[in-house]
């Protein structure tokens, strides 16, 4: 059997296969795809609209964190002479603790907020 014979055999096999014709099917597939496309566009548009708000929120959170840290350091500076020496903390250790404390508190509170509704 040659290559041409095989091609004829396969072509005949293909030609004799009958499939139900559903004229409305391509339009249905088109509408399904178009709907998904419109939905995707809408989601992307919303994301684009929300981007400045998300960016603003993040910037505000960073500013608030930096402000909080500055306040803590300032409070620490006033306490330094009277109290820190008595509990055996060096100024550097106390400053590092203060810098870590605020993010730790924020993280704990935000984690609690996420976990509590499900418990």
């Amino acid at each position, binding site marked *: 059997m040659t290559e041409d014979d095989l091609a004829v*055999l396969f072509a005949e096999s293909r030609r004799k*296969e009958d499939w139900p014709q559903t004229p409305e099917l*391509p339009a249905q*597939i088109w509408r399904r795809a178009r709907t998904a496309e419109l939905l995707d566009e809408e989601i992307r548009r919303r994301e684009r609209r929300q981007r400045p708000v998300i960016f603003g929120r993040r910037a505000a959170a960073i500013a608030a964190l930096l402000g909080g840290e500055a306040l803590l350091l300032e409070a620490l500076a006033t306490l330094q002479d009277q109290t820190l020496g008595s509990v055996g903390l060096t100024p550097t250790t106390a400053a590092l603790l203060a810098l870590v404390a605020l993010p730790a508190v924020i993280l704990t509170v935000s984690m609690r907020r996420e976990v509590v509704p499900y418990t």
Partner: protein
Amino acid sequence: MDEPEFEAFYRATADRLRTYLVRVCGDRRLAEDLAQEAYYRFLRSGFSRADGEENARYLFKIGGNLLNDHWTEVKKITAMPAEEPIAGAATNRLDVHAALGALKPTERQMLWLAYAEGYSHNEIAGALGVRPASVRVLLFRAKTRLLRLLQGDLK
């Protein structure tokens, strides 16, 4: 591709795609479902070339990928059921169909694309995601097995 263009493309390729899928998976209902999904994904991909055959090749590639996904999902490759011969209507179609059923799915895909669709080795490699050099060897093996089965059928 706009709606009228898509409808024309569908009319030109639907039977070809469904026949390809049913020859590879052996299940008409599955072939119809996968064909619909393939057209949907084709539209969603935004792929559109002036050459209709290039679009068809891309569609066949999606169809083949969907078949592979389906098989991965069910964790087994179903053997294609051999068609019951119809009395007085023994045709080459039945012989080819039955012989293909005894081959591996990849062999069925390669043979169908090569001999029913007239794909080149490079085009088969693109559709099945294998190296063009491998296609030559794998296709030769598949053809040898098919011929052996067909000759056994004719004895």
